[in-house]
Structures are given as structure tokens and as C-alpha cells.
């Protein structure tokens, strides 16, 4: 039986068979797309190496979670749900679009396997998908044009607004959906006019609506509409395909690969150059990223993949307090540069100009606290910390280091701590531990089962020494046999590495590794999440490392600590997740469980800003010395959140957090209303009340 309308593959246009045109469009479209992609791959070929062709299972799991299951999308609920609708709509409609393209030159083409019952089910599914996507597209357009969420705004210094591109793409998607619907509906209407049986359309779907609209249209009009809809779909489809690699919608193509190759280990820092070991660093001509081509190919793929959704910058504490950094524009500016230097047509001009002083400013790159909030949020697995570290390595190599950081770096080199304090005083905090708990000194040849790695700030800072003293008393009470390195300990170098001074970090690491291994300690405990992260992720060949909260929790659960409420009544406290304990090491629960086991406390949460969405206090290590341009301190934002949560006590588990939060309480004028305290101090207070510190260090009984 002849179809009611002449199909595209059989039609003629002014005597020319339409199938020629409909064959030419995909051939040209695919050819052009391939050419564009080849050019887009050119910078990746010239990029620094990156070791990502490994750990296939974990990578596939990441693809399943982030790409297919869109796991991070609902963190921004409305935008996320709309994206999920569009994403699955695309996946479903891809088959139909493919079928349509072939129908232009093969009459009556049906995708293999798409006949029969499966085909009918698919038709219903794709009609639902098309309708849902169209609704989503309308809502997205209204959001973009009317409600204009603040995170989409482009500050003038970062370039042009991206709304026109977004609207154009939404328009293209709508065009595809509508033309597909009309193509199908016009044929159905014509068939029905001839009184033929047609497949039923689900009510309220796009083709259903179009079929109703067209039910009494003249045959010629239906025929014209049928062919026109086909042509519009064909052209729009290939225009869209070739338009993708020119902007933020490139992620439609690259996201799968970007997620597959994403960074799998939070808290780590990439090597200076993949394939060059720590011992061979001296033979490298240059360190870090100075020009665009110094980025690794994965980092370039990140730039291509950024969908410009603004979530990274929305969560970025530096951006929030008005520092000159917005992670989103780290990507967008690099992509713009890449597209300028590697145009799709015309000669390629590798980007020889330095990035710093070009698209990036020094303060922009120093503003990052490496808190990881941006990476945690990015639905596409784009990474920023390694880029920041690589850019800083380049600046350090060129001598571009702010004066405020040069002194602490020089002191770290000479004395192993950023203040230049004397090595022999590193263990002086033990003098304030008090009766009944003796801290063993490995430097004096004593032996112990555990090594307490104190790190610089807790060793030297008057206020933070109290954390070490409290921790020592708690460890003693818990019967932990521990000692410290004393003058043999140097700074862990955690921030030294993250501030780009790799060689200094290497020398600190070598020194500490040797000193730690010489103790014979079977495990390491630390109260400083930065040291914890460094020893676990940046060092190698050490005994297992535990954070104090894990050790305390174990002791509490074993009933080894006798506790009493630290004060009268019940105090409301909130726990602040330190970045390097939480996001970078996923230790969200142990500190909370410790607090919950302490008497006299009621714990609340800073909802929406806790756990993996914790808001950085301002940064640790060398960040304490950096003088950023900012409108407000991050810590002030944070203590206000704690106050809003109804807390009287903000509990940190990191000495740097404590410094920043205590300062912020003063700046915010919350003295007397909010107190910042370290977890170890909190436990120690409860111990003191209970008089529960009869057990001396590792000696048992009385001391």
C-alpha cells in the first residue's frame, strides 16, 4: 500500500530527487563535524601527558554514577531535574533522530530491532520524551530570560553574557522536537483522512497534539508540511551537531569522556609531570603551567566540557567573599583562549604568551584555598585544584610569589616551619600538658606504638598548642602509647606543595619520612587534617595514619574514657567539616559520632552547608600568610552560618579552622555568643570534669 504522503526519500524538488539532498546533508554535516573535532583535538595532542588510561572499573563506575545516573544534578534541584529530563530525552530521541536521517534517502527505513512490539513501545516512549523535553526547554528558557539565576551572570571583566547562546540552543532543541512531531503527525493525519488504521498516539504528547491540529488540513498542506518538517529536522540536526563544539554545549559530546577520565582520588595533587618521578624532577626544564599548552590533555578536555552552569563558582568560598577568583571563568577564559589560538579555519597559532598576566592574574590563582567545593559540585567532573597547583608551580618557577609568602617559604626551608621558630622549641608545648600525662619524645630515643604528628601550627602557635595538650591528655586517658618527633619533625609541607613549591615540599617530605620511619611507630595519629592528608596522600611508605577523631571514637566506644558534662545545662553545638578531613578524606561521621557521645551537648547542622558542602573557613597553612583582596573573610561567613543554625559552640577538628573561626567570631562581633573549640579540647573538658585521667602515657595505672 502506498503511503498517504510522498516520503522524503521519494520526493522531488524542482525535478531533483530530494534523496540526493537528504543524503548530502548528513554527509556534509558529518564531514564538517569530523573536521571540527580534529581541530579541537589538536591542542590536546600538544598538551602535557596525563595518566588516565587506567582503573577502567572505577572509571566506568564514575560514568554510571555521574554521567548516566546524573548523580550530582539534583544538588541544584530545579535546574538538575530539568537537566535530567533533557539528558534522558536526548538519549531516547537519539535513536529516532538517527532513523529520521536515514529515512531521507532510504524509504521506509526502520532501525534494526525497532519493528514490532519494541518499536511500538519505543514510539510511545519517544513521544513522552519529546513532550517532556519541550516542557523542560520552555521552563529553562523562562528561567534564563525572566528569572535569570544569579549564578549565570557574567561579570563584565570575564567577557560576554552567555544567554544568547543558551537561548539559541534551546530554540534548536525545540525545533528538533517540533519538526519531528509535525513530520509524524502530518503523515498520521493524512492516513486517517484516507480512513486507514494508524498506530494510536498517547494523549497529550506532541505528535498527538499536532495530529489533532492537522486532522482536517488539506492533503497538499499536509504533504508540504511533511516534507518541510523533515527538511527542517535534517538541517537543524546537523547544524546543531556542528554548532556544539563552539561553546558550552560541547559538553554534549565531551561529557562522557570527561567523566570517564575524571580525577578519582580526592585530596591528591598531580605530579609535576606525569611519567617523571620525584627523583628526576631536576631534569625538567620548566615547572608547572605557564602557557596554555602546558596544561595536560585532560585539563584541556575540562575546558571543553564546562557547561557554564556556575555551580562551582556558586559554591566557591573565594568567589563568595569577593576574592578575584571564579572557578567557572578559569575554564571559560581558557576555552576562549584555546578557540582563539586554535581556530576551526585558518592557521593554528600555539598560545606562546604566558597565562599569568594574560587570561589569569596572580591574585586570582593565589586566591584558591584548595577546599575542593567546586570539584565536589561539578556535574561533569571538572577539576580545579590540580590546575591551581600547576599554575602556582609555574609562578614559583618564575619567581612570581607574593612577598607575604616569600618569608614563610624561606623559613620553612631553613627551619622547617613557616614562622622561622627554632627547631629545638618544636616540642615545648608538651610542658603545658600537665600532671599525669607524659609525652614521649622519639628524638630522645624513647619508643612508642603510635606517633603523634603535631605539625607546625599546633607545635608553635600559643593558642593551637592547647589542641596538642588536650589531645595528649585524651590519648593518655585512652591508654594510647604515643610519642612525638619533637625537633626532628618538620612541617608536613601540605600547603607548600599546594602553593606550588614542589622542591621544598619534596625536601620536607624526605626529611619527615625518614624521621617517622626511624621511630618504628606502628601507626600515626594527627590532630591536623592538613598533616593527615599530606601523610596519607602526598607521602608514601608510612605506617597507617589516623585522625584524632577516629582514635577518640574508638576509645569512647570501648569505654576507655570516663566523661562528665563540661558545663551546666545542655549547650547547642555545630560541627564544622574541615575541607581536608571532609571532602578530601570523607571523614564526615567520626567527629560527629564523638560529639554525640559527649554528655551535655546537643548537635545541630548547618543544613545545606555541611559535609561535602562545607564552607571553607579561609584556608590553612601558607594561606594564613597570604593577604587576599576580599570584601569579607570566609570565616565570618562561616560563623554567621553557625549562628544561624542556632549554635553556641562551633566545633572544629583542625587547628587552621580554629584560627580562622576564632578570628571571625571577633570580627563578626559574636564574642560571648559563639565559641569556637577543637574537638580534642571538647573531649578534654569532659574528661577533666570526670577526673578521668589517671592513666599515664602507655604506663598504665598511676604515674
Amino acid at each position, binding site marked *: 500500500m502506498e503511503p498517504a504522503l510522498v516520503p522524503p526519500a521519494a520526493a522531488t524538488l524542482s525535478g531533483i530527487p530530494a534523496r540526493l539532498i537528504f543524503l548530502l546533508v548528513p554527509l556534509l554535516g558529518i564531514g564538517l563535524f569530523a573536521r571540527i573535532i580534529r581541530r579541537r583535538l589538536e591542542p590536546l595532542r600538544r598538551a602535557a601527558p596525563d595518566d588516565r588510561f587506567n582503573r577502567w572499573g572505577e572509571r566506568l563506575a564514575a560514568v554510571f554514577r555521574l554521567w548516566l545516573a546524573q548523580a550530582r544534578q539534583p544538588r541544584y534541584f530545579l535546574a538538575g531535574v530539568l537537566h535530567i529530563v533533557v539528558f534522558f530525552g536526548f538519549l531516547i530521541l537519539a535513536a529516532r533522530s538517527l532513523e529520521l536521517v536515514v529515512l531521507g534517502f532510504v524509504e521506509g527505513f526502520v532501525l534494526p530491532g525497532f519493528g514490532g512490539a519494541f518499536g511500538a513501545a519505543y514510539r510511545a516512549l519517544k513521544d513522552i520524551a519529546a513532550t517532556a523535553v519541550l516542557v523542560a526547554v520552555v521552563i529553562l528558557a523562562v528561567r534564563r530570560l525572566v528569572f535569570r539565576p544569579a549564578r549565570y551572570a557574567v561579570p563584565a571583566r570575564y567577557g560576554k553574557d552567555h544567554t544568547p547562546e543558551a537561548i539559541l540552543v534551546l530554540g534548536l532543541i525545540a525545533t528538533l522536537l517540533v519538526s519531528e512531531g509535525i513530520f509524524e503527525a502530518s503523515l498520521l493525519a493524512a492516513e486517517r483522512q484516507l480512513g486507514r488504521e494508524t498506530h494510536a498516539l498517547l494523549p497529550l504528547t506532541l505528535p498527538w497534539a499536532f495530529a489533532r491540529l492537522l486532522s482536517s488540513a488539506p492533503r497538499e498542506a499536509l504533504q508540504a508540511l511533511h516534507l518541510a518538517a523533515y527538511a527542517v529536522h535534517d538541517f537543524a540536526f546537523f547544524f546543531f551537531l556542528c554548532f556544539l563544539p563552539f561553546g558550552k554545549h560541547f559538553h554534549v559530546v565531551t561529557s562522557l569522556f570527561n567523566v570517564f577520565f575524571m580525577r578519582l582520588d580526592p585530596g591528591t595533587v598531580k605530579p609535576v609531570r606525569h611519567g617523571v618521578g620525584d627523583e628526576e624532577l631536576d631534569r625538567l626544564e620548566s615547572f608547572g603551567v605557564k602557557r596554555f599548552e602546558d596544561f595536560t590533555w585532560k585539563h584541556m578536555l575540562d575546558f571543553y566540557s564546562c557547561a557554564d552552569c556556575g555551580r562551582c563558582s556558586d559554591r566557591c568560598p573565594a568567589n563568595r567573599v569577593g576574592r578575584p577568583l571564579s572557578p567557572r571563568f578559569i575554564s571559560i577564559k581558557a576555552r576562549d583562549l584555546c578557540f582563539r589560538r586554535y581556530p576551526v579555519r585558518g592557521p593554528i597559532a600555539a598560545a606562546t604568551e604566558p597565562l599569568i598576566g594574560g587570561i589569569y592574574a596572580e591574585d586570582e590563582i593565589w586566591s584558591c584555598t584548595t577546599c575542593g567545593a567546586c570539584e565536589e559540585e561539578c556535574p561533569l567532573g571538572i577539576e580545579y585544584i590540580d590546575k591551581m597547583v600547576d599554575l602556582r608551580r609555574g609562578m614559583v618557577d*618564575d*619567581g612570581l610569589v607574593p*612577598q607575604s609568602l616569600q618569608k614563610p*617559604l*624561606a623559613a620553612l626551608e631553613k627551619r622547617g616551619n613557616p614562622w622561622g621558630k627554632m627547631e629545638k622549641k618544636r616540642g615545648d608545648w608538651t610542658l603545658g600538658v600537665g600532671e599525669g600525662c607524659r609525652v614521649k619524645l622519639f628524638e630522645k630515643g624513647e619508643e612508642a606504638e603510635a606517633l603523634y604528628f603535631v605539625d607546625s601550627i599546633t607545635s608553635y602557635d600559643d593558642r593551637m598548642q592547647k589542641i596538642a595538650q588536650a589531645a595528649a591528655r585524651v590519648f593518655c586517658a585512652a591508654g594510647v602509647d604515643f610519642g612525638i618527633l619533637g625537633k626532628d619533625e618538620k612541617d608536613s609541607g601540605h600547603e607548600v606543595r599546594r602553593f606550588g613549591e614542589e622542591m621544598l615540599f619534596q625536601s620536607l617530605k624526605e626529611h619527615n619520612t625518614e624521621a617517622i620511619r626511624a621511630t618504628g611507630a606502628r601507626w600515626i595519629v594527627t590532630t591536623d587534617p592538613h598533616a593527615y592528608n599530606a601523610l596519607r596522600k602526598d607521602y608514601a611508605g608510612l605506617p597507617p595514619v589516623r585522625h584524632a577523631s577516629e582514635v577518640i571514637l574508638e576509645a569512647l566506644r570501648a569505654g576507655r574514657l570516663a566523661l562528665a558534662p563540661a558545663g551546666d545545662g545542655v549547650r547547642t553545638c555545630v560541627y564544622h567539616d574541615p575541607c581536608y578531613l571532609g571532602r578530601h578524606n570523607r571523614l564526615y561521621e567520626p567527629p560527629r559520632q564523638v560529639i554525640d557521645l559527649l554528655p551535655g551537648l546537643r548537635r545541630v547542622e548547618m543544613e545545606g552547608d555541611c559535609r561535602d558542602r562545607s564552607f571553607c573557613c579561609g584556608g590553612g597553612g601558607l594561606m594564613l600568610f597570604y593577604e587576599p583582596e576580599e570584601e569579607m573573610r570566609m570565616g565570618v561567613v562561616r560563623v554567621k552560618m553557625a549562628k544561624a543554625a542556632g549554635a553556641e559552640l562551633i566545633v572544629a577538628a583542625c587547628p587552621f579552622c580554629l584560627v580562622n573561626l576564632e578570628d571571625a567570631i571577633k570580627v563578626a562581633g559574636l564574642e560571648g555568643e559563639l565559641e569556637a573549640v577543637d574537638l580534642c579540647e571538647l573531649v578534654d573538658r569532659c574528661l577533666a570534669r570526670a577526673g578521668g585521667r589517671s592513666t599515664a602515657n602507655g604506663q598504665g595505672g598511676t604515674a
Partner: protein
Amino acid sequence: MNILVCVKRVPDTAENEIEVRPDGTDIRREDLVYSVNEWDNYAVEEAIQIAERTGGTVTVATVGSADDEEVVRREMAMGAQQGLMLTDPAFEGSDGRGIAEILRAAVARGSYDLVLCGAQADDGAGQVGGMLAALLDWPYASLVNRIEVLEGKKLRIGREIEGGNQELSEIELPCVLSIQTGINEPRYVGIRGIRKVASVEIPVLGAADLGIDSARVGRAACRVRKLDYFVPPAGAGAEILQGSPEEIAARLVDLLKAKGGLK
């Protein structure tokens, strides 16, 4: 322009606890760490920037022993092309004039258009630059915080005067300038930079190489002799204000008004 910068290795004073030796001959040096004198570091940065703009070389020289080589190397890692160690047992114990004498011989041996030194050293008396200029019979300007190279072997130099105002002068080359901190932002030198110049040979020149009469330098030739180091007795003491922050602030304002600090 060929520039010589005179540098000195000094105890790092940031957190070092400086104690006087009981015998009063020196400070206790056992636990000290050393670095390049801060003012000298600015002078080297300035020299490198001038050489980058106008061409020429930068040479860094120090009077001292093998221990002092580390600062010369650090400044070479910054970008100075050449180093110079002025080392001789006969130089030990020289006073400011003796040091200037040694440096004068080093300057005479090369062909320098400009000699820079730090305005003072952490452990010095701020005297060598002026004496060196006098011995060379070159023009001298001190506390320079701005240098502009002019046509015809001249410099326009700036100096900060009272109230943050600037004084501009013109000086003919060759000349000696003493450099104030803040004239620039010295670049960072890391371990990597130092390792890159670790194998560069630094010439060591003694009294004979420099043609210096040993009788004019060293401890015996000092015309200024150190007598003693001691900790002065504590004075009547400061007044520590007591009370709440508001009370302390009010009392402080009263005191400042009373003593003429506030009008």
C-alpha cells in the same frame, strides 16, 4: 649597563632569638640561621630589572668566607649572571672602611657602570656604601627607592622624604647607590632555582688577586674597634593598661592627648 651589587649574609632576624655571648665578644651564633641581607636582596632585584631593560650584566659580590657563598648563589639563582667571592684570611675582622677597601679593589678590577648596595644590613651600621663611593671618588646617593635610566650615562633617582613625599635627583654614572627596601618586589628563589646554579663556578679572589695591601684591611687595620656586647638594663617599664577594651581605648586616647600624640 654592567652592575655590581654588594651583598652580605646576615643572621635571619625574623624569629631568631638573638642573645649576647657572656664574654661580650659577639652574639650567640650556634642556633642561628642565615639569609641574604634583606636590603641587598632588593638591590639585586633592581639590578636585574635594570639589566633586563637596558642590557648588560649583573655581578654579585660578597666579602666573607666559604659559608657566605650560599647567599651569592641564591642571588645568582635570582638572575645575576656572575658571582664574586672576596675571601682571604687577611680580610677577617675588617671594619666598615676595611670592607669598603676590599670592595673598591673588586670594583676597580671590573668595568662597572653602577654599584648597588643595600641601605644597611641587619647586623651592620649602614656605612660601607658611602665609604666605597668615597674611595672610588664616584658620586653617591643613599636610600634610593626608584631608579630610571636616562640618556647620556645618567640616572634619575628617587628618595622618600618625610611625610611620604618623593625627592628626585639626577646622578652621573658611574656611581654608587644604596637601595631602600620597597623599591621593587624581589622575585622568589626556591630550592630548584639554587640547584640550577649549583655547579656554576664562582671565582674566589684574595688580597693578592685584588692587589690589596693586607695592612690596610683586617682586624689590625680597624680604626673602629668593638668593645662589648651587652643587654641594657630594663628601664622604668611600660604601663600596661587594664580594664575592658572600651576602658583601655578611652584611657589610651587620654594618654595620647596628654602627651601630644593627638590634637
